[in-house]
C-alpha cells in the first residue's frame, strides 16, 4: 500500500517536472507547410462567416461557441 502511494507521488512529481521542462513540439515549424496553406484556415473569410453565423442565430434557438479559438498553428 505504502509502495503504491510512493509510486503515485513520484509519478505526479515526474509529471510536474516534465510539465515545467521545455515541451518539444511534435510538429516542427518546418513541418507546418500543410497547416500554413490558406485553405486550412478555420475562418478563411471572416466577413462571410460572421454573416452566416448571424443568419443562423436569427433562425435558430442555439447560440454561441461558433468561432475558432483564433490563431492556432502559428504558421504564418
Amino acid at each position, binding site marked *: 500500500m505504502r509502495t503504491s502511494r510512493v509510486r503515485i507521488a513520484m509519478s505526479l512529481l515526474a509529471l510536474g517536472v516534465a510539465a515545467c521542462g521545455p515541451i518539444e513540439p511534435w510538429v516542427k515549424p518546418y513541418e507546418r507547410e*500543410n497547416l500554413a496553406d490558406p485553405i486550412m484556415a478555420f475562418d478563411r473569410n471572416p466577413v*462571410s462567416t460572421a454573416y452566416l453565423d448571424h443568419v443562423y442565430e436569427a*433562425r435558430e434557438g442555439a447560440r*454561441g461557441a461558433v468561432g475558432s*479559438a483564433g490563431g492556432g498553428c502559428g504558421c504564418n
Partner: protein
Amino acid sequence: MALIAACGAPAYAGVLADDRADVLYHRYEGGGVTIDGPSILVRKKFGERFAATANYYVDMVSSASIDVELTASPYEEERTQRSLGFEFLNGKVTYSAGFINSEESDFKSNTAYFSISQDMFGDLTTISLTYKRGWDDVFRNVRQADGSLTRDPGFAESADRRGYSVGLTQVLTRSLIMAVQYEVLTDEGFLNSPYRSVRYIDPESASGYSFEPEVYPHTRTSNAASVRMKYFLPYRAALEGQYRFFTDTWGIDAHTAEVAYTHPVGERWIFDGKLRYYRQNAADFYRDLFPRRGFANFLARDKELATFTSYTVGVGASYEFRVSRLPWVQKSTVNLRYDYLLIDYDDFRDARLTDPANGVPAGSEPLYELDANVIQLFLSVWF
C-alpha cells in the same frame, strides 16, 4: 492554466493577421422575408504589434413573414451595425478589445468585449479567454392612421447580456488541426419580441383561436460546446468536420453537425462545399396553440423556439487576381457563395390555413416549412 503560466512561454513572438479589406453584398430570401445589404470589413496593422478592425454592416429588411401576415402588416426596416476592435501582440500573448453598436428604429444594442489568447508549446496550442457584456434597449413601433410607423412613447424595456468563452486550438499532426470552444451566455431583462403573439383556443372566434402577447422569462442562460477538426488532404484540399452541443435554461437542447470541403483548382480558383444539419427541441413554454387565454406564466409561439430540423447545402467559388496598376495590393479575390436553407418544423403550424368550415380547425393545419436562399458576393483585397 496556472501551471502553464508558472512555466512561462517560449521567448519568440506570435504574428498578427495580414492587412485586409472585404466588401460584401448579402441577400437572404425566404419565408416572405427579404434581407439584403452591404458589409465592409477592414483590418490594418500598425507596426508588428498593433492591429485595428472596423466593420460596417447593414440589414435592409422587407418582411411579410408568416408572423407578420397573421398579426400585423408588412413592414420595411433597416438595421445598421458598426464595430471597432483593437489587438495588441506582446510576445506570445494577444490582447483584443472592441465595441459593437447595432441600431434599428425599435432596437438598440451595445456590446463590449475583451479577449486574451496565448500561443504555447512551440505554437502547437493556442488558448483564448473572452468576456463580453451587452446592453439592449427595446422599443415598439406603432402604425399611425396615415400608415407610418412611429415609436410608442409608453414602451421602453432593456436587457443585459454577459458572455464567457474559452477556446483551445491544437495542432494534432502536420495535416490535422482541432479547435474546441465552450461558451456561456446569460441574459437578463426583456427577452421577447414586443410584437409577437401566441394563439389560444377561443370557441367564440370564427377561426377557433385568438391572440395574446407572448411572455418570456426575464432570464436565460445557455451553454454551448463545439469541436472542429480540419484535415489537409494529400492532393491539396481540406476536409472539415464540426459538432456543437447547446443547452439552455429555457429547456432547449440543440445539436449542430457540419461537414465542409475545400478544393483549389489551379493557382487561382478555390471551390467550397458544405452540408449542415441542425436539430433542436422546443422551449418548455412553447406551444403552437395554447388551450386557453393566460394558460401559463410564460407563453411563446416563436418558431425559433419550436422543435425543428434545419438543413443547409452551401457552395462557394473564389477567384484570385492581381491588378498591376495597384502595386500596393498584394492579392485580391472575388467570391460568390450560395447557401440553401430548409427548416422543417415539428410543432409550428401554418395558422394562415385554418378553415374550420372545410375541416381544418385550429391545431390541425399543415406544419410550416421554411426554405431560404442565401447569397453572398464579396471582394477581398490584401494590402
